[in-house]
């Protein structure tokens, strides 16, 4: 088993090179089996960073595996996170039915702090329900009931220029707004409204909760701004174009 490790992660990454991606062969994509941890780890890597639950079909397409293989890897991971050994004979079968209740035979490890859940046909990793209280306390720590000035200004720009990408809001405000946009989304004040057909960037718009808080019926009721303010036309979008 030791053979799988010697790959110093640094070196390997370099070999693959930053631009190995685009032209890395039309047909396949990376050979999963040659990567440390194989297909299972690749699937984990994806599950760990996706925000929206992903369907087995989408995962299979992205990983270049069959849906069947993905299904059984998902089941395997789910069991493993729940504290069952991977190689328990009944692994696959059991996981289909008793996902979370556990304590039948086959489990001999402590469960992880996260779990893999299948919600409405898609899979995503969540923090384990048992720790909800602790996690909730951590999340609340330092949270305020007030929006920061930066958040308010960002919200104002989005409200008046929606739908708009983060890059444009950044260009208007002159600072990076990624984390503020995340806060506003979390607060339910703005939401994803699809992607820009040209740049592929996510566009944001205000929500009905925002209207509620403002006490207005629609964004058309927002007070008019002075007509002299620049629109979005002149704003250079720095994510595209290699002009910097």
């Amino acid at each position: 088993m030791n053979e799988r490790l010697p790959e110093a992660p640094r070196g390997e990454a370099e070999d693959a090179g930053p631009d190995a991606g685009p032209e890395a062969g039309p047909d396949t994509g990376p050979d999963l089996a040659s990567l440390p941890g194989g297909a299972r780890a690749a699937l984990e890597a994806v599950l760990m960073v996706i925000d929206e639950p992903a369907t087995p079909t989408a995962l299979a397409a992205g990983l270049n595996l069959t849906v069947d293989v993905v299904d059984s890897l998902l089941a395997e991971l789910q069991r493993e996170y729940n504290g069952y050994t991977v190689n328990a004979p009944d692994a696959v079968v059991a996981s289909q039915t008793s996902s979370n209740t556990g304590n039948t035979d086959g489990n001999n490890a402590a469960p992880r702090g996260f779990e893999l859940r299948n919600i409405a046909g898609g899979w995503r990793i969540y923090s384990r329900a048992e720790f909800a209280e602790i996690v909730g306390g951590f999340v609340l720590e330092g949270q305020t009931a007030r929006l920061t000035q930066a958040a308010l200004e960002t919200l104002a720009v989005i409200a008046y220029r929606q739908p708009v990408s983060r890059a444009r809001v950044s260009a208007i405000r002159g600072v990076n707004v990624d984390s503020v946009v995340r806060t506003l989304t979390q607060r339910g004040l703005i939401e994803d409204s699809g992607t820009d057909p040209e740049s592929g960037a996510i566009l944001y718009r205000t929500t009905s909760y925002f209207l509620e808080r403002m006490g207005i019926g629609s964004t058309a009721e927002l007070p008019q701004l002075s007509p002299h303010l620049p629109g979005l036309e002149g704003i250079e979008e720095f994510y595209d174009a290699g002009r910097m």
Partner: protein
Amino acid sequence: MPVQPADPAVAAVPEVAEVPATPEGPDGPAGKKPGFEVRLVNFTGPFDLLLGLISKHQLDITEVALSTVTDEFIKYIRGLQRLGEEWALDEASEFLVIAATLLDLKAARLLPAGEVEDEEDIALLEARDLLFARLLQYKAFKQVAGMIGSTLELEARRFPRQVALEGHFAALLPELLWRHTPEQFAGLAEAALKPKEAAPTEVGLAHLHGTPVSVKEQAELLGNRLRLGTPLTFRALIADAESTLVVVARFLALLELFRDRAVGFDQLLPLGDLTVHWTADSHGWSSENLSEEYEDQP
């Protein structure tokens, strides 16, 4: 994880040699005009160009054979001039400063080698040392820039977990305090959308006291006086200046006018009186023509 300077792949920074260093490529397709022009813009500044030229000739920075490099540098600048409008003045000036220094140095080399005695020679030596010191410094930064670039690319291969808060946690967040009326909110938007003024680069003048004097205004005043046709001496033109600042402003204004070919100068004797006469037709010039550079300055 710390960047390892020893890492060979990281250390192999952008090869200067790779940078197309030939302004007029005798080598291959670069000889064609369009290719040539595209390649010109690959340098990110005069030092970059100079480094490119030096490494093209495989010279040590500290002992460069200046004449070859100088000639190519000048050639490059000519090429840039041909590029025309994209060539911004403040970029050009840095190139020109360095070209001038290089030319000085080349000229000094062409003279018979003598002892370094007079001040000019010493100044030249200093100019050379300074130029090479700056070049070395730039080279160092260019190398670490290469490392930073490759680290950023390497790191971009790792994606952080950064998922939206699960619904039941988001529900725990304290209810938002919202006290903004739609009007206040619109005020915020106005402020955020208003085009920002460029931040000052350098030199605050706030501590200097003195009434702001506008070069443009002074130019207009001078124009009105000279436009009548009678030549006036500089002395006469500044006779009513209430402060040195105004004198300076009028002098600058005259230079501007001269540049716009609105006035001409006569000076019969060295250090004698400077006479100014109007050369533009009387309606052909207005202070609006003045370049922007003085506009916002006090």
